[in-house]
């Protein structure tokens, strides 16, 4: 009986494929894309201001709401933060990923892997609150800065309009630092994977043909690692775009997209506007990926 079954399956590879892929595809379609579709549909409804009821008719009114200066301000702030965090994480992650991929012994690589992954094992909320304490006015970081007599530069930094605040914890700088920390593993791992797939002989060939290390990096290593950088930046960028815990716990209480979505679908019950806000990151990511493809980020895949 079992034998008959295995023979039947062996002779019908397509059936096996269908059986294997069917359930996850169904899940993807219904739960994953379904919820996205629901979002899209909802964003074209509107909230009736008088009754507090959602009017289920096609309208662009909600998007008109979204484009009000206050809301555009939120989108711009969030996108700017996401871009800054992505750039900073890429800069921090690349050297470490390069070291892990090219120089670390297998043993050291395991240790570094664990080190990168370890923060992901503990609750994200706990880590955010820990950073809140670290960055507080009487926190360990200001104590350390005080020890180094670097108060003046810190005060100057906190005095900058737009990104400053009364302390690191209560300024956009603090939000930036915590975002960078929280999403860093998601940048390191894809870059490391991409670099592992670049054989050492490529860099040797470049050097052999007369390129200095900086040129080898620019013309060979970086272009070949770019898919990894793009993959990592998709994580850091989209995770920052959607997060509401970090700007809620730290910063100067100016809204990010995540907070706007949270408050609109919660307290004010304006689900259509929340949905419209959510479409923002989706559109931004699509544009980002198109630009990345245009720049040849996926050519080396």
């Amino acid at each position, binding site marked *: 009986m079992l034998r008959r079954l295995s023979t039947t399956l062996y002779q019908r590879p397509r059936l096996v494929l269908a059986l294997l892929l069917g359930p996850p595809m169904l899940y993807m379609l219904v739960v994953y894309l379904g919820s996205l579709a629901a979002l899209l549909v909802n964003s074209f409804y509107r909230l009736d201001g008088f009754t507090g009821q959602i009017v289920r008719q096609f309208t662009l009114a909600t998007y008109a709401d979204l484009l009000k200066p206050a809301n555009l301000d939120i989108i711009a702030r969030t996108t700017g933060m996401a871009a800054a965090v992505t750039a900073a994480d890429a800069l921090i992650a690349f050297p470490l990923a390069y070291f892990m991929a090219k120089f670390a012994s297998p043993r050291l690589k395991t240790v570094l892997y664990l080190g990168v992954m370890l923060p992901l094992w503990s609750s994200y909320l706990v880590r955010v609150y820990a950073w809140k304490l670290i960055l507080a006015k009487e926190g360990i970081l200001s104590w350390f800065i005080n020890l180094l007599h670097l108060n003046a530069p810190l005060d100057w930094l906190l005095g900058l309009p737009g990104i400053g605040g009364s302390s690191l914890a209560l300024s956009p700088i603090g939000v930036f630092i915590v975002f960078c920390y929280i999403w860093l593993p998601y940048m390191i791992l894809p870059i490391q994977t991409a670099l592992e797939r670049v054989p050492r002989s490529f860099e040797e060939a470049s050097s052999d*043909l007369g390129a200095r290390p900086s040129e080898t990096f620019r013309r060979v290593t970086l272009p070949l690692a770019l898919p990894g950088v793009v993959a990592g930046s998709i994580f850091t960028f989209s995770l920052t775009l959607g997060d509401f815990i970090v700007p809620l716990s730290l910063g100067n209480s100016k809204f990010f997209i995540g907070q706007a979505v949270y408050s609109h679908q919660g307290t004010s019950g304006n689900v259509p506007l929340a949905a419209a806000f959510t479409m923002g990151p989706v559109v931004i990511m699509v544009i980002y990926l198109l630009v990345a493809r245009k720049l040849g980020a996926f050519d080396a895949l």
Partner: protein
Amino acid sequence: MSDHSAVIFERVSRHFGEVKAVDEVDLEIKGGEFFSLLGPSGSGKTTCLRLIAGFDRPTFGRILLYRQDVSTLPPYERDVNTVFQDYALFPHMTVGENIAYGLMVRKAPKEQRQRRVDEMLDLVQLSGMAGRKPSQLSGGQRQRVALARALINNPKVLLLDEPLGALDLKLRQQMQVELKAIQKRVGITFVFVTHDQEEALTMSDRIAVFNKGKIEQVGSPAEIYEHPATAFVAGFVGVSNLVGGDLAKRMTGSESRFSIRPEKIHLQKPDEDTVPGQIVADGIVRDVIYLGLYTRYLVELTGGGDLVVVEQNLETTSMDVLAARGQRVRVAWAKEHMRQIGG
């Protein structure tokens, strides 16, 4: 040391921890010659190539390129180029961009780059392929692109790290001839790493045979084959019968070890007359391997010991040679074909 020396190793060692990958090697490669580093894997030949290229530095000793000490120079300041075993073609560049790479990083003007790329494509018979990506090429074509890329800077020495290893037999033999022709044409010193003794014998002007980080022998293909200096060379280059001890004493009257090539030994009928001065021994054919062009016999000698004998199938058929199994035979060879082997 002559002025023509392209590469000189002066007591060069490269240690990896406890392992002596290259152990006090002295070597001189002349300008314009096709020089092969031959040896089994792990014998140090590839490490020597990497030392010349500059990917690795000697633990002790000096390396001279045209009388200049380059021991500590980085690869990008050495006038040598390399054809890698895996070709190492940049996958995100076209064939033309790959070949032009060496000129581009040297900031050569665009017209010159274009002209040289065309010349190089011509040299390796890939004209019109400049726009392709390496992934669209066959193994043999990639090999040619790698060669063109390495030659475009007109290096003083071209290093080739088992470049034909990934090709099938027919293509490999064709590329052997072609490589040799290209080397003649461009007149550049080629240093060729291989573990394939036939390849080394086919292409080289001179060969260095490596074993365990040391050079066993340096010489022309004929010298290496006909006058192996050590038991290792005799066994590694071609097939050799190594005879020593009692057996040698019975045959030659002396216990000192000698080697004899299988093709130099004749099989005779046991009662056949022997030519005076020849070494003879009696035995039984234990095994026969018919290989088309020739046949390999394993002869077990009376009183112990085996000899491998190879005879061409000039007038014999497979039926004839296979019938020899189990037959009593006499083996004979002329004294001048024996080589005394030290060690």
